[in-house]
């Protein structure tokens, strides 16, 4: 009985292995090149857009225009032509086209760390974002940033539309200013070794080093800020004073609740609640060189 079980299990495993290792092809191995003029007969608009793009220019070193033309990306088209069209016998999906993109671009600096990137891990391929047939948008993107990125990153779209935001939707910043979509060593594919290093590129006044550091600030800006957008001023994740009190519970005012009573219209207004509350006195929370105890408490 035991031998039969072992035999059956091995057989099942072999069958599974066979199925998994069975090569799934996209292009027919027997197909031959037919030339771009053959493609133009049926795909005139696509041909025109290709010819006007950088891939269609024969004088650009290594371009498809200098080699197999349309078939450099879509594979040999003889089977596709013989069948009168259709998706069989031609490469049309991003997944199967990726190898052809890599054949020319794999040595590019921009793609050096593609293998490490989240897009590659999540099955996003070149032609999901780029197209030789996209005219007028830089880097042959199918849509301009950030619209292209919002197609998958809807929660980011929601955040960048909030009242406190980086000027992404205004067109003054792009997703690729901070992120490398082709992969990088940074977390969330940022273009720096750490979040703070990335932020300091534009906000160098926050770098310090300061005599009195605020440790969660020095460690990670995202401890207090929601970088894509927030409904709270200054991209804060939460409204102060409660944001500050989440860490600073102490005697007297740090541990005192500030409620509707302490607002401008309340019966006992307090500058620890109205307007910019904690920041009215504690103005150097990013670090201070202030004198003595005032610096230690970020009041100067």
């Amino acid at each position: 009985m035991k031998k039969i079980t072992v035999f059956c299990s091995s057989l099942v495993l072999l069958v599974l292995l066979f199925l998994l290792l069975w090569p799934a092809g996209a292009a027919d191995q027997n197909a031959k090149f037919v030339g771009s003029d053959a493609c133009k007969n049926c795909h005139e608009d696509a041909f025109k857009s290709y010819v006007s793009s950088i891939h269609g220019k024969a004088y650009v070193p290594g371009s498809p225009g200098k080699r197999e033309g349309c078939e450099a990306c879509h594979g040999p088209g003889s089977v596709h032509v013989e069948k009168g069209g259709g998706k069989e016998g031609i490469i049309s999906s991003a997944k199967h086209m990726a190898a052809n993109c890599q054949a020319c671009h794999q040595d590019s600096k921009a793609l050096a760390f593609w293998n490490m990137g989240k897009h590659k891990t999540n099955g996003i391929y070149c032609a999901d974002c780029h197209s030789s047939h996209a005219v007028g948008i830089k880097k042959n993107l199918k849509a301009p940033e950030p619209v292209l990125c919002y197609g998958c990153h809807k929660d980011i779209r929601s955040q960048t539309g909030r009242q406190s935001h980086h000027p992404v939707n205004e067109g003054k910043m792009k997703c690729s200013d901070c992120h490398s979509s082709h992969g990088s060593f940074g977390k969330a594919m940022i273009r720096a070794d750490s979040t703070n290093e990335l932020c300091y590129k534009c906000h160098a006044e926050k770098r310090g080093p300061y005599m009195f550091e605020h440790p969660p600030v020095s460690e990670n800006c995202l401890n207090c800020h929601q970088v894509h957008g927030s409904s709270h001023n200054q991209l804060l994740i939460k409204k102060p004073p409660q944001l500050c009190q989440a860490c600073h519970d102490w005697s007297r005012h740090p541990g005192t609740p500030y409620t509707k009573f302490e607002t401008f219209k309340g019966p006992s207004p307090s500058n620890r609640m109205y307007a910019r509350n904690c920041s009215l006195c504690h103005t150097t929370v990013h670090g201070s060189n202030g004198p003595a105890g005032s610096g230690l408490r970020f009041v100067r």
Partner: protein
Amino acid sequence: MRPRLLILFVVLTLVPLSVSFAEEKNLTGEVSVTGVLPYIDGNKATFNEYRDYKSNVISPFAGLLLNYDNKKGYFFDFNASDIGYQTQEYLLEGGKYGSFKYRLFYNELPHNVTWDARTFYTTPGDSTLTYPQAIFPNQDPNQWGGFDYKTLRKTYGGGVDFTVVKPFFASFDGGRQTKEGTSYKQGGAEGGEGARATFGLATELPEPINYTTDYLKAEIGYGKQPFFGALSYYYQKFSNDDPYLFVRNPFFTVPGSFMEQIPLPPSNNYQQAAFAGNMKLPWNSKANVKLAYSMAESSKHLVTSIFEGSTTPVPITYSDNTFNGKLDTQNYQFVLTSAPFRFVDGKLYYQYYKTNNKSDEISIDDGSNPLWHNHLFEYEKQNYGAELDWRLMKGLHLMTAYGHNYIDRKREDIPKNNDDIYRAEVKFTGIDIATLKVGYQYMVRAADHDIPTLTLGTQQEADIIEQFVRRYDAAAKNQYAWKVDLQLYPVENLNFNIMYKYIRNDYKDTTLGITNDKRNFWGVSGDYAWTKWFKTYGYFDWDQEDWEQEERRYNPASAPPSNPNPVAGPQNSTNFNWTVDQRDKNYDWGVGADIYAIPKKLTVRVGYDYVRSNGNADFTYLTSAALTTSGGVTRTNENMDISNWDDYRKECFFIKFIYAVTPALTFTTGYAYESYKYNDAQFDGYRYVMPAGATGAAVNTYLTGAYADSSYKANIVFFGAAYKF
């Protein structure tokens, strides 16, 4: 205005010149001008946060696009937009394909926060703030001077990439960014110091911003399979032309000009040298490595006196009157990726990241405390983990991952964290019309905890209450996260997407602080194109964040002396536990369409976007003795709650008609409406001069109006023309 008209004139004269180039078909481009006439009612600064529109004035926004290609490999592209305005941008890129590329750029970015802010100081935006009165400033804000909280960034520079000696490459970039204006951030001549000796007085101050940041980048490398390697160097220098802000303290009760000296952000410089590279290995694998070392330095002359309860400043003695800051960082990362078989991809990674704070530890004698010194913060991180992506059958993927993060900080309350992160995701792409992804992540964070040794303050209080405080950035927690993403494309040109994300953090060891938070996000979107007649899109997002927090209020001055222990300590009117639950609900939706009313001739573009945020804060005092009376009103656990907590509603509508007179010449005209209504308890009923409490006799706070009254409505008419050549 005149310089803008001049630039516009120059741009328009390029049209006939460009036409002659175009005849050779080497130079193509477009010149455009759009006249914008906005009628803005309400806060013009908020409307113009990142814009430069003038209300009731027609502003011509010109643009120029030039593309040159000599068909022999040389090319350039020039793009100019918003010429002459504070949002102007210029970019020139060019080169020779396969040989070199260059770029030159200039752009401006305004950030407008509040216009017509007010202050009694006579020169807002200057590094010395004073007022003419003998003792107190003018108490009537209607007589104060006006100024704007706004800054303007200008960034310019260039770079060049060389690929002529393949497979070697080199890149060089350099640039400068300036930021000028006035900000509210550095505020608060904290009162109490001075003859009044009352704690907690505040003045909102305008801070001068005169920043210059220069940078240089250089990179050389080699890229040809199976090797890639690049050495890079980055240098950044930040200069602040206003190292100090001198402020006359407005709270002294005797005549005199009591000037406080407030240090502003120090100038600093930063440099990094790094190597990043990879090598292809057998079994479809790649080894990747990054090694980086960086150094940041700053220097500041310290302020050597401060007013503390008298009109004579108290001297401060330092072991060194100049603070020299220095922070070194090391980053070493190793990543191995592999796809040895058709059915599995894998990744192993390890990172070591360490900051080493070599700044000065300076002994401080401020007369009222024993000698003490500043504490330097630094930390060390190690992250490692593995990911496996299994292709189970046609179109079915299973991704599993484990990661471990370790951090050791020079910080007494939570010096160490160990995070274990488990992740699994299933993705199905087996049918042509849909893609489904379901993912789950579970994280356990362990945290060491200790009681900090106070530099200033009462150690006994710390020893009791700090046992219960956990700071959320490092506190122990369990995190659960779900994500579901369904994409449907049933027919050509029709796409739907539904996405759901849920993240919850339970801070299991926290008694005082954030105890849990969670986020629910829904996103739905769709688009359809009937390419001959129209294309349309729509979206809807819902995002809700909830935070629960527990705190303790205690008064060590009460008799008998209070016990800050939230469990064993007394519960009375000045010593009590309390909670606050905050909720932020955000939702936004939009629709839009391009209608080809006359194909290739007349297009109507229309769109509407709506964004809404509703927040609230629910307070509960856990003892009725704390529900005291203030200003004649008795607290209850209902009347303290806040229902307008960064509430706002923003609507944008536009309609645009695009008429192509010829394929080259296009006219546009249209109308846009934008409305923003903001309502928040912290700014509702804004006042510039505030007493202590509701009826205190003396002034407690002076404000300038930063972020006050930020609502607006705008009606915008626009018309323009574009010519392609």
